[in-house]
C-alpha cells in the first residue's frame, strides 16, 4: 500500500493544544499497576515458560522427596511442612527470574520507564503478576503434597491458603526487586537465588512453623505468633522494596 497522506481524523490535533486542553490523563498508580500486571499475566499465559517450569519443579520435588523419605523414621506430618515451603521457595525463584526477562528481550522496559506512570507502579504491577504466578503454582502444589503424603486435607486447606498468600507476598516483594536488579547483570541466574535466599529465610521459617502447628492440631495462638511475623515482614519489605525499586530504576 503506498504512503497516502492521512485522510481520516488526525491523531494529532491540528492546532497545538496547551497542557490543560490535552485529552490525555495518565493512569493512576493503581490503574498503571493493574495494566502492567494484566499484561504480564497475559504474556505468561500465552508463553507459559515460567509457569510450567515452576510447576514442574514443584511437583517433581514433591514426588522425589517421597522416594527419599523413610516413613518409619519420620512421620509425614513432621516432614511435610518444611518440605512444602522449601519447595515453594525454589519454584518461586524459578518463576521470578523470568518476570523481568520479559522486559529485557526487546527493551520493552524502556517503554515502561518512559511512560507517564510512577516507578512504584511498575514495581507493584510486576509484583502482582509474580504473586499470581506463585499462588497459581501453590494452588496445584499444596493439594498435591497433601495427597502424596496422605495428610488430612479438609481441615487445613483454607488456613494453608492464607499462609500461602502471606508467604507469597513476602517472597514476591523481595524477589521482584532482586529480579529487577539481577536481570541486567552477568550471571543473573545464579545471582538471584544467592541474593534472595537469606531474605526468604524468615518467610520460610514462619510459614513452615505455622503449617506444622496447624497440621499438628496445636492451639491457634501458637500459630498466630508466626503469622504476625510474616505479616510484619510483608508490610515492611513491600514498602522498603518499592522504595528501593525507585532507586534501582533511576539510572
Amino acid at each position, binding site marked *: 500500500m503506498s504512503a497516502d497522506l492521512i485522510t481520516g481524523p488526525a491523531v494529532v490535533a491540528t492546532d497545538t493544544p496547551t497542557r490543560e486542553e490535552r485529552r*490525555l490523563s495518565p*493512569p493512576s498508580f493503581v490503574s498503571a499497576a493493574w*495494566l502492567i500486571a494484566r499484561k504480564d499475566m497475559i504474556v505468561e499465559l500465552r508463553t507459559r515458560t515460567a509457569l510450567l517450569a515452576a510447576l514442574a519443579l514443584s511437583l517433581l520435588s514433591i514426588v522425589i522427596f517421597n522416594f527419599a523419605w523413610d516413613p518409619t523414621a519420620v512421620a509425614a506430618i513432621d516432614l511435610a511442612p518444611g518440605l512444602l515451603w522449601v519447595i515453594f521457595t525454589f519454584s518461586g525463584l524459578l518463576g521470578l527470574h523470568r518476570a523481568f526477562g520479559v522486559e529485557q528481550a*526487546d527493551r520493552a522496559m*524502556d517503554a515502561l520507564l*518512559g511512560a*507517564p506512570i510512577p516507578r512504584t507502579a511498575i514495581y507493584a504491577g510486576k509484583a502482582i503478576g509474580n504473586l499470581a504466578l506463585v499462588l497459581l503454582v501453590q494452588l496445584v502444589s499444596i493439594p498435591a503434597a497433601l495427597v502424596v503424603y496422605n495428610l488430612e486435607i479438609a481441615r487445613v486447606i483454607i488456613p494453608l491458603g492464607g499462609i500461602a498468600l502471606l508467604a507469597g507476598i513476602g517472597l514476591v516483594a523481595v524477589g521482584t526487586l532482586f529480579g529487577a536488579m539481577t536481570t541486567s547483570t552477568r550471571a543473573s541466574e545464579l545471582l538471584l537465588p544467592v541474593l534472595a535466599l537469606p531474605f526468604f529465610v524468615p518467610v520460610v521459617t514462619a510459614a513452615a512453623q505455622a503449617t506444622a502447628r496447624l497440621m499438628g492440631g496445636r492451639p491457634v495462638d501458637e500459630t498466630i505468633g508466626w503469622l504476625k511475623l510474616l505479616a510484619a515482614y510483608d508490610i515492611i519489605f513491600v514498602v522498603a522494596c518499592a522504595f528501593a525499586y525507585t532507586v534501582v530504576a533511576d*539510572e
Partner: protein
Amino acid sequence: MALVEATALTRAFGNRRAVDRIDLTIAAGECLALFGPNGAGKTTLLRLLAGLLRPTAGQARVDGVALPGGASARAAVGLISHQTMLYPALTALENVEFAAQLHGVPNATSAARAALGRLAIADRADTPVRALSRGMQQRVTVARALVHSPRVLLLDEPFTGLDDAGSSTLADTLADLARDGAALLLVTHDVREGLALATHVAVMRRGSIALHEPRIASGEPDAFVRRYREIVSA
C-alpha cells in the same frame, strides 16, 4: 516556544562523559536531524531527553518540565529506539493498545487501531508480533510511539528495517506531525532521509555538538557528507 531544551546537559558513566555539556533547543514544528559516528553519545542524549537517564549535570526540559521529573514530565514524549520495545507474545494491536493505556489515551483500542492504520499495518493487528517480519515490527514500534500524540518525538534510527513503502509512510507521518506542531529529534545514518525531513542539522562527536545549523546551510546531501567526514575525522 522551545519544546525540547538541553542546558549544559552532561551524562557521565564512571568517568567517561558520554554527553558533555550540550546546549540545544528544538521548537514546535522543528525537526533536528542529528548525525554522528558510533559512540558519539547520540543514543545517550536521546535517553536523557526521554527521561530514561538522569543527567550527571545540567538539565533537560521537555515541554517546559524538567526531566526525569515525575510521571507527568514524560507524558509528552514518544521514543523510538534501536530495539522494538514490543512484547513478542502479544499482538500488534495489544502492544499499541497497552502503550495507549499507559499514557491514558481515551478509547485506547480504537486509537491503537488508528495508529496501526496510519502505518499501513491495520490488517496485521491481530497477529502476534513475533510472527511479523522486522519491517512490520518496526511499523508497529512506530505506531506504539505515536499513539498518544506526543508533542516531542525522539527517534533513534527509525527507518531501520523498513522497506521503501514503509520508509515513505514514516517520512510522511513525521512530516505531518512536525506540521502539526510537534518537535522531532531524528538520529539517523541515512543522510538523504535525514536531510529531507530536517529543519535543522547537527553533528555530534565525542559527547559534544560539533555542528549545528539550519537545514538551508547544509546544502545537498553529497556536499554535506563531505563536510561531515571532515568534522568527524578532525
